[in-house]
């Protein structure tokens, strides 16, 4: 009974029923063989031969040959291959010679869209397909990094230079203050991430940008959808490919620091200017070490990747088995990441090819040596690397006489040895990702077909950290070896049913799809830790002991889940391939919302017109001209669970609500519980409505092609943690539908391809995009959100308010340096009071922008934001005989960054700029005078630290050589290509921080540079071999 329920609930029964039904269908047949060639007679391997209106077909082998058994007598074959125009062939004999013309238009190319595919020429939505040929030349370990600059409207920033960090991918800029990350759909499975996928397994990437395309993913599509399809077996004979690259990475360190003598000089000056006594350690230049902490903390990194795959296909079975290994040893000591991928994709054809079953098994293992960066909104932590940059050069790094080899600093230098602390701490994570996915496609009758997908994604994560005892001073003291371990398990299950319908009636073409899906997410975990292992040789929690009041063993854990249930459909119609309309609808129900607002409905319409197919259209140099327009809505459910409940916070091992009582010292701790946030019963879906107008064009017989899109979206009821007055007593900000925002922009992409029949061939693709957002409603009562803090939880640098772009910098305006007391005295208000009474010559002049004669918060001004005006990528490919060259430039124009790292290095007297500080004799400088007391508050948040972070970067330069075919054959190879290149070779920018492309991922803190793990420049050598 229970099993029956299970079967019925998830629709497996339906699938079994269909399978049984189709066995009854049979027709008379023919056995075919054939060869597919190009116009010159060269064989085309991997061409697909499909029997039209059936799901049957095969593909050609390495010699371009195929066999196809039991083809219905009156069938039509559809022959297609990448780069060639598809052709319909009636089998006139049992052996067919089929010649294909090179495809110049690309309009018949098939695009993967949500829950289906569509011919590129039929698309009416804003969908970008990424040229995977260019992608395969990017020496990158993950998909996000590879997408950089490859598609218009897709902005990728390197999160940090940390090898295990995830890049930040934004589709069409920031369109929500909530999580604006795109949804990834990998082989039909919607996921929040795709960093576990091996780029070498990727067949195609489509990016759904407008609502018309993305509505079909309804509730999660507000940040755009990135659809990834993995490679399947193609040709007949098994083929083996081996790809590898090896790269040497060096840190791009461009922040010059003071050495000991320089620092002593600067600090002495700063205290002398205040008439105060400087710290003891700067007083005698002959004392102390002069260490290079940054040098000791960093190293040369090696990144390497090896991919091996074997693939093939017969009439009934296609398969591809791949293995990939990637590792990056990191550029900081004791960091690094490794990934291993195994994937088996197969396709089984049954019932005369009416039934296709596509099982996928993929396994990924991630090994990280952890390095945590300080990212996101809220409190201003600075990253561990900034702690290294600020460490006094006076401290010694190593001490051969200490037990662990690292030096304890002299007490007056303060605690800490960042190199020792890093090396004596061992933190790792080992994560296993398992993807099991079975899709079945069953051809029914009268144009109907049915598709069923069951998918499971299981992530098992394990992290541990163990610290060896050390004593680097009172604040950097670990008395006993300590250890913590955490094990987590996330299981995601998906069932999808699709019913498809396709019909052609004369010039009327109909296509429709209806679907139902259920998704279930469960996450559970356990954490254990203790601060006293009985011996440093034990690496297990079993070695923890409690010997006294200071020792502890603690456990913790988590257990939560969420479900999503959805109904969706799409219908499209075109007349004579000239006029296209399409409509989609999706209704999502999410357990994350309360019963009142659980369901959300999303819809879209779009239309297109192939002008070039009209009889009246007669411009020979335009081969495609297709305007299109769409309007629709998508949603965002990216909120944590049970926000609609009035939760009571029970803090467990968090000191937050706990408190000791008792008579004697070392009192026992009592656990407290109370409401720490507010429930929001009315919490509802965030919704984005987008209007999109675009134009596809193709000129000069397809040698120039491209598209232009304009979009205008409005996001309503954005969900975000809402800053509320702390006078409410609430310490955790509640989630509300706080704001509405609009986002406008355009995207342009154009490609030129030189004629294909020359020895020298080249193509160039340029992508440009622009977007601008604006808040049109914020919170209750016209509130503002200040964030981008650069001093613990204060000194906000950004402000989000109505009528302004998200997270605009909000700062004091400076106007140079006071050169004399006379200038300070002259800077006064109407009543004769000095506006900056605490200033001295050499201090910054702050502008009383509102002219009220006082310098206060009202004088801060909005000064741009951290999003670029223009994001662009230019990819140039050329080949001459056996040589090929790729140049990829990527840039951002008009983004600003608050150089918090510089502020930090000024505050701690570590920046080499300070040698050029203002003095009465060094007045021609823009570095304000040194003063430790900083009575003028030169370090207040001002445009002094705000910089233009526009840049152009030569991201990839690669030169390859392919062995001539004869030579390769002699070596028993299909193909051999070797290449060498450089990644991140050159950057042109005015930005003086680490890197203008390292972005804070916090939505309200975007562009606030707190000093992240810097990027590396790498030199790459690689190899592609086919057997």
């Amino acid at each position, binding site marked *: 009974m229970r099993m029956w329920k299970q079967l019925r609930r998830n629709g497996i029964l*339906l699938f079994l029923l269909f399978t049984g039904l189709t066995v009854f269908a049979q027709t008379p047949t023919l056995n075919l063989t054939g060869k597919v060639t190009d116009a010159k007679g060269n064989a085309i391997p991997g061409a697909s031969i499909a029997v039209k209106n059936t799901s049957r077909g095969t593909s050609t082998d390495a010699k371009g040959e195929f066999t196809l058994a039991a083809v219905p007598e009156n069938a039509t074959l559809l022959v297609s291959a990448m780069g060639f125009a598809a052709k319909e062939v009636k089998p006139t004999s049992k052996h067919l010679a089929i010649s294909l013309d090179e495809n110049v238009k690309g309009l018949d190319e098939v695009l993967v869209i949500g829950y289906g595919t569509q011919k590129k020429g039929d698309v009416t939505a804003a969908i970008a397909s990424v040229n995977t040929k260019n992608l395969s030349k990017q020496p990158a370990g993950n998909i996000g990094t590879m997408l950089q600059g490859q598609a218009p409207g897709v902005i990728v920033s390197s999160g940090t230079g940390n090898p295990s960090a995830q890049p930040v991918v934004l589709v069409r800029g920031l369109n929500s203050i909530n999580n604006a990350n795109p949804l990834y759909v990998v082989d039909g499975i919607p996921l929040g991430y795709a960093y576990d996928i091996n780029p070498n397994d990727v067949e195609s990437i489509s990016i759904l940008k407008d609502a018309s395309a993305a509505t079909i993913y309804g509730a999660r599509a507000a940040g755009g959808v990135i659809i990834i399809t993995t490679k399947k077996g193609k040709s007949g004979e098994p083929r083996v490919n081996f790809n590898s690259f090896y790269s040497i990475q060096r840190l791009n360190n461009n922040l010059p620091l003071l050495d000991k003598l320089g620092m002593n000089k600067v600090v002495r000056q700063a205290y002398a200017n205040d008439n*105060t*006594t400087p710290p*003891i350690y700067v007083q005698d230049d002959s004392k102390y070490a002069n260490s290079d902490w940054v040098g000791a903390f960093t190293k040369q990194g090696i990144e390497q990747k090896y991919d091996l795959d074997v693939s093939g296909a017969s009439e009934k079975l296609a398969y591809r088995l791949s293995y990939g290994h990637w590792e990056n040893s990191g550029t900081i000591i004791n960091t690094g990441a490794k990934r291993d991928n195994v994937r088996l994709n197969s396709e089984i054809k049954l019932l005369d090819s009416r039934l296709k079953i596509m099982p996928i098994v993929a396994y990924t293992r991630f090994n990280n040596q952890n390095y945590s960066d300080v990212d996101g909104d809220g409190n201003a932590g600075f990253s561990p690397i900034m702690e290294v940059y600020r460490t006094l050069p006076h401290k010694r790094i190593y001490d051969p006489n200490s037990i662990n080899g690292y030096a304890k600093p002299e007490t007056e230098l*303060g605690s800490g040895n960042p190199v020792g602390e890093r090396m004596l701490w061992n933190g790792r994570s080992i994560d296993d990702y398992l993807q099991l996915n079975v899709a079945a496609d069953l051809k*029914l*009758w009268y144009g109907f077909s049915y598709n069923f997908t069951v998918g499971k994604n299981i992530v098992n994560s394990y992290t541990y950290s163990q610290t060896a005892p050390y004593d680097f001073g*009172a604040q950097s003291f670990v008395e006993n070896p300590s250890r913590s371990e955490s094990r987590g398990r996330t299981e995601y299950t998906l069932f999808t049913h699709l*019913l498809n319908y396709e019909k052609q009636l004369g010039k009327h073409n109909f296509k429709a799809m209806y679907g139902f899906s259920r998704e279930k997410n469960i996450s559970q975990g356990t954490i254990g830790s203790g*601060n006293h292992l009985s011996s440093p040789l034990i690496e297990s929690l079993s070695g923890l002991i*409690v010997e006294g009041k*200071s020792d*502890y063993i603690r456990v913790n854990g988590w*257990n939560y*889940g969420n*479900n999503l249930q959805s109904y969706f459909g799409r219908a499209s119609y075109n007349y004579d391939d000239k006029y296209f309309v399409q409509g989609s609808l999706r209704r999502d129900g999410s357990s994350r919302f309360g019963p009142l607002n659980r369901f959300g409905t999303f819809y879209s319409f779009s239309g297109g017109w192939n002008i070039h197919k009209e009889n009246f259209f007669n411009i020979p140099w335009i081969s495609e001209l297709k305007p299109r327009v769409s309007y629709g809505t998508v949603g965002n459910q990216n909120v944590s*669970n049970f926000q609609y409940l009035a*939760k*009571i916070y*029970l*803090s467990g*091992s968090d000191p*937050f609500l706990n*408190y*000791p*009582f*008792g*008579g*004697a*010292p*070392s*009192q*026992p*701790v*009592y*656990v*407290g*519980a109370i*409401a720490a946030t*507010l429930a929001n019963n009315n919490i509802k879906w965030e919704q984005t409505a987008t209007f999109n107008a675009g134009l596809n064009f193709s000129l000069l017989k397809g040698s120039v092609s491209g598209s232009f899109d304009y979009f205008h979206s409005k996001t309503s009821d954005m969900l975000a943690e*809402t*800053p*509320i*007055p*702390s*006078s*409410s*007593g609430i*310490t955790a900000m509640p989630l509300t539908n706080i704001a509405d925002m609009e986002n406008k922009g355009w995207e342009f992409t154009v490609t030129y391809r030189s004629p294909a029949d020359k020895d020298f061939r080249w193509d160039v693709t340029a992508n440009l995009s622009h977007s601008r957002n604006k808040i049109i409603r914020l919170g209750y009562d016209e509130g*503002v959100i200040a964030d981008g803090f650069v001093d*613990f939880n*204060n000194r*906000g640098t950004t402000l989000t308010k109505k009528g302004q772009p998200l997270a605009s910098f909000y700062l004091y305006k400076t106007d140079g340096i006071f050169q004399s007391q006379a200038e300070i005295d002259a800077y006064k208000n109407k009543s004769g009071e000095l506006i900056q009474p605490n200033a001295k010559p050499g201090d910054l002049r702050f502008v009383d922008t509102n002219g009220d004669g006082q310098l206060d*918060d009202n004088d801060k001004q909005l000064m741009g934001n951290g999003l670029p005006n223009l994001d662009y990528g230019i990819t140039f490919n050329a080949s001459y005989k056996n040589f090929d060259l790729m140049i990829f430039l990527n840039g951002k124009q008009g983004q600003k960054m608050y150089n918090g790292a510089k502020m930090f290095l000024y*505050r701690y007297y570590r920046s080499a700029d300070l040698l050029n500080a203002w003095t009465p004799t060094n007045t021609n400088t823009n570095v304000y005078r040194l003063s430790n*007391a*900083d*009575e003028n*508050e030169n370090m*207040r948040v001002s445009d002094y630290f705000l910089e233009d972070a526009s840049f152009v970067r030569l991201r990839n330069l690669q030169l390859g050589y392919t062995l001539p075919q004869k030579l390769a054959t002699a070596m028993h190879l299909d193909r051999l290509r070797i290449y060498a290149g450089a990644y991140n070779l050159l950057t042109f920018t005015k930005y003086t921080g680490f890197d203008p492309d390292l972005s804070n991922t916090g939505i309200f803190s975007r562009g606030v540079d707190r000093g992240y793990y810097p990027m590396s420049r790498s030199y790459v050598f690689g190899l592609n071999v086919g057997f």
Partner: protein
Amino acid sequence: MKLKITGLVFSAVMLFSSCSDKFLDLQDKQNLTENTFWTTRQHALQGITATYAALQGHNGDKWTFFEEVFVTMAFKADDIDNNKNEPYGKNMAAFVNGTDESGPWNLWATCYAGIGRANQVIEKVPGITVMTDKERNEIIAEAKFLRAYNYFILVNGYEHVPLVLKFEKDLNKLQVPQAPAADVWAQIEKDLTEAEGVLPDSYSSEYKGRATKGAAKALLAKTYLYQEKWPQAEAKFREIYGKYSLNTNYVDNFNGTRENGPESVFEIQFTGDRSVSDERHPFNFEAAPYALDGWEIFYPSDWVVAEMKKDKTDAGGYSDRVYGNIFFNDPNSKMWDLGTPATLVPYADVAGSLSRPAYYNKYTYPNDRSGAYVGYNIPLIRYADVLLMLAEAANENGKTDEAIGFINEVRARSHAKAITTGSLNKDQLREQIRNHERPVELAGEFGIRWFDIVRWGRGNTAKQAIKTLMQNHQKPFANNFVEDKHIRFPIPLREINTNPLLKQNNLY
């Protein structure tokens, strides 16, 4: 044919028939909700525990407690000189801070976190039927005491603050305008009057540290004192006079040996027991010199050191409280080295490697076991303070000689020479209390000196201009002090951003 159509129809029915929405009804397995909480005695205790926990900072973090809350309360005063090489409270101590200074926001959030939790206890505990009336009322009285304590800090620190007495759950009603200071004072008196009637005289040993009747009376008397209601203050202090006693050793107030002991009226509880969570504070090494493995974030000011050195015994030596407060150039002055194992170090041993002539050794004790941080309680009101406040009130009420007697009780404990009755007139005794007895006895203690300076600076009885006082006491950057500005903390910019009804304090 029939079969095919039946198949299609069947499949359509299966797909379109709405599956049950029960799939979307999930239970929160990690949290109780307001509907399931506040039903047992345990819940009431957990609620009041959380209310006490706010005394340690709004997020329970030891750094918030020291670097934000303590620094904000202490660094403006003339008994502390901050280490100019460290960023903590630097701008505030130099009277150049803006409205986005982090300390005042964290102090504000800490007080209101306590108030919000107290409001929840006051509203919800009456509904818990499984407790006795006495148990219920006592817990509610504790919450009122804590609410009053937090408003006391707010009204003295910021003066113009919203008066929130209800835990508001409607997101649209969270913005509350500032109340007149008089209303806040009145509410503090009301809460404490109600609490003192209900709170028990003491707790069993497992619950020591919770608010007692005596604590409520002391805070109520202090509230009268701060409003210069001298007769009421004196009367209320007299209600607890003799109910407490001074520890024999001055230092036992700070070294953990007499936690919640005879001199303790109310303390913020900390502990070295980490088996549940980390409830320690870092005062010990924040104050200790580099040479003793400390971080030396702040020092006793030169003025307070000079004032200490006037505190002599009959024999002409320094009183116990001088040695208990500061580490200075004296053969008997000692301080704990915080290294492992901790040792008591004479001044002469480290004199050469100190960057300042004197340090506070008041809170600088090694932890009850080891490690950098410490679990000893921080006194908020101790009996010595009560006696000095009683003396102040009595003096203002014209009982100068009796007041000298109260002061001498405190002096005697530290073996400081008694003040001869009749040797000081009312004005002289007032000066003695303000600028010797209180700063010497209570130097660097939580919430004492800056608020004393504030009340004497704004009051009507012998008003004492703060800037002049600061200049006389050589407070660094005293020249930056603007009288009607720096007497208050700024209303935190972060708070104004979320509550536009708030008006910024004068001149910020």
